[in-house]
């Protein structure tokens, strides 16, 4: 399967701080890719690099088989929705569609107009007076109106209320079902991504911690509970992601492609959110100290 985004050792530094380091990814086409990580992890940086709003400090990035911004024709194939859906406050909704039409040769005016109609938006309303959810919808229309092959969304629902959030995701799913394109969307909330993403990238503290199809990740991560044990005693093929112990019991999150045959363990599946949280905690250096002798594995 062709890759929509390929990076090799990609890094971006601002003054002395590395916003993104050593990022090597091959994101396949035809997926809804979730980019998840805490605030400041580097998600926006990675997405901005993908659309050419930033230039790499080190490494390379190729989008749709070419460097970003190589030619305007490449920009025509990529739709971008920046954080907070920046629109021109003085322009009306209809004028934003006109903007899309004038600046993109591949613009589908009929589709865009139908979408605005269906959303119940007033074409004559100035973008500055729209609600957050409405602005996100207009910005999404602007991004997919040019019929891109790849849609990149930077925290599209972060500042939306729950209803607006759900409606936005419903819309996005419908658009994908209608006409297939790849999507990369970032969020710091895993719950948003769980329903819609089938490929996941976990970015913490400027580095990629985990990347792969969701089904495969869930199938290869297991929660092991059993009597107190040193994680180092596990077979080599089982990589321990996180461990917590009480005096009697050990709970481990392991990643393995083999079956766990040791009868001492109770093996259970792990949910996406818990899996991602475990990687985030590991990246943060094991997390907080707890009361001695008592380690709580928080299930949320």
């Amino acid at each position, binding site marked *: 399967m062709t890759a929509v985004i390929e990076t090799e050792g990609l890094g971006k530094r601002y003054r002395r701080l590395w916003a993104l380091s050593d990022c090597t990814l091959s994101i396949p086409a035809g997926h809804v890719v979730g980019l998840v990580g805490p605030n400041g992890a580097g998600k926006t940086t990675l997405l901005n690099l993908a659309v*050419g*709003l*930033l230039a790499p400090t080190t490494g390379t990035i190729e989008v749709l088989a070419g460097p970003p911004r190589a030619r305007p*024709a490449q920009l*025509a194939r990529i739709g971008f929705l*920046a954080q907070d859906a*920046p629109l*021109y406050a003085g322009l009306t909704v209809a004028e934003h569609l006109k903007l899309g039409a004038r*600046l993109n040769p591949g613009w589908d005016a009929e589709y865009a107009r139908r979408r605005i109609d269906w959303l119940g938006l007033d074409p004559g309303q100035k973008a500055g007076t729209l609600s957050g959810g409405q602005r996100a919808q207009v910005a999404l229309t602007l991004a997919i109106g040019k019929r891109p092959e790849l849609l990149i969304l930077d925290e599209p629902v972060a500042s939306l209320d729950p209803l607006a959030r759900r409606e936005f995701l419903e819309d996005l799913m419908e658009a994908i079902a209608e006409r297939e394109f790849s999507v990369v969307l970032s969020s710091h909330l895993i719950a948003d991504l769980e329903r819609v993403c089938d490929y996941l990238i976990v970015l913490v503290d400027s580095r990629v911690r985990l990347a792969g199809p969701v089904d495969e990740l869930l199938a290869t991560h297991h929660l092991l509970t059993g009597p107190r044990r040193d994680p180092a005693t596990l077979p080599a093929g089982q990589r321990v992601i996180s461990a917590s112990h009480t005096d009697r019991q050990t709970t481990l999150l392991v990643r393995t492609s083999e079956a766990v045959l040791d009868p001492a363990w109770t093996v259970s599946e792990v949910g996406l959110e818990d899996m991602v949280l475990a990687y985030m905690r590991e990246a943060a250096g094991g997390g907080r100290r707890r009361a001695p002798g008592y380690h709580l594995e928080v299930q949320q």
Partner: protein
Amino acid sequence: MIWLTWRQFRPQAVTAIAALAAFAILLGATGPHLASMYAASRVAGCQGNCDHLARNFLAAVRGIYPVVFTLGLAVIILAPAVIGVFWGAPLITREFETGTFRTAWTQTITRARWLATKLILPGLAAIAVTEGLSLMYGWWAAPIGQAARVTGGVNFPLGMGPFGLPAFDTHGVVPIGYAAFGFALGVTAGVLIRRTVPAMAVTLAIFAAVQLAMPLAIRPRLFPPVHATQSLAANFSGIQNQGPGGHFAFTLDYLDGAPGAWILSSGAVNAAGQPVSVMPTDCVHVAQTTGDPTQCLASHGISIAVTYQPTSRYWPMQWTETGIYLALALALAGFCLWRLGGRRLS
């Protein structure tokens, strides 16, 4: 992109058209009467010594006319600065501050085309507005200008020789250069500083500095000045300062035979051409008794050395100065294109 640029520029265009219209109405309401007063004064067709006719006319120009006269000069001088600060600086900073550049730069357009279109349309409008103001005002103020030139500019508050500071800057073609430069300067400040209010402040400061430096330091040197000597015996209008101990100095603001010339410096010299600043003792005595040592100084061979730009240099200077400002504007525009297109910004 042309549509988008126009749509974003529309509010400023409306303001500009309103300002032009208001200016035109003001000039149109007062201009015809001024012209008819001038025709009645018969200064235009006069041969020989028309000085008193001109002075009569200028004395009659009272009431609203001097107000409009000064206001017009102020408007034209300030227009390029206003354009630089309110059209130029926010052009790019608004896009950075609101984040809309992330929307604009991910459409199917190169950054070069985006910026070039955003520069050209308002830039041409800036030039048109400023030059339009200048031409309207030039038509209105023509009678006053001509009369003032006849009198040598002594009777009118602002020096009206063509090289006079407000006159040169507000007539001819230099407003075109100022407008282009002011606008380009504003845009560049915006590109580098990326926040609206600081960019506006920097634009104003730099533009003011340049506009002061040009007439004071650069314009006099655009062409090599002419040197001449004028005898004290000839008719001259100048101011003679007498300090203690026989020190004196001449200031000449009207050169015999070259009305309207731009006098860069003048001073008293002796027969050998060396500067003289102390009066001979017998002339001090003459000054004390009669108050006018002119004839006495002349008898000692003292005359006035003048450095000036003749009026024939007016249009060459206009075009050269305009060329300099346009070149600066283009250089700034090129810099902005390189800065935004080559480097990628966060």
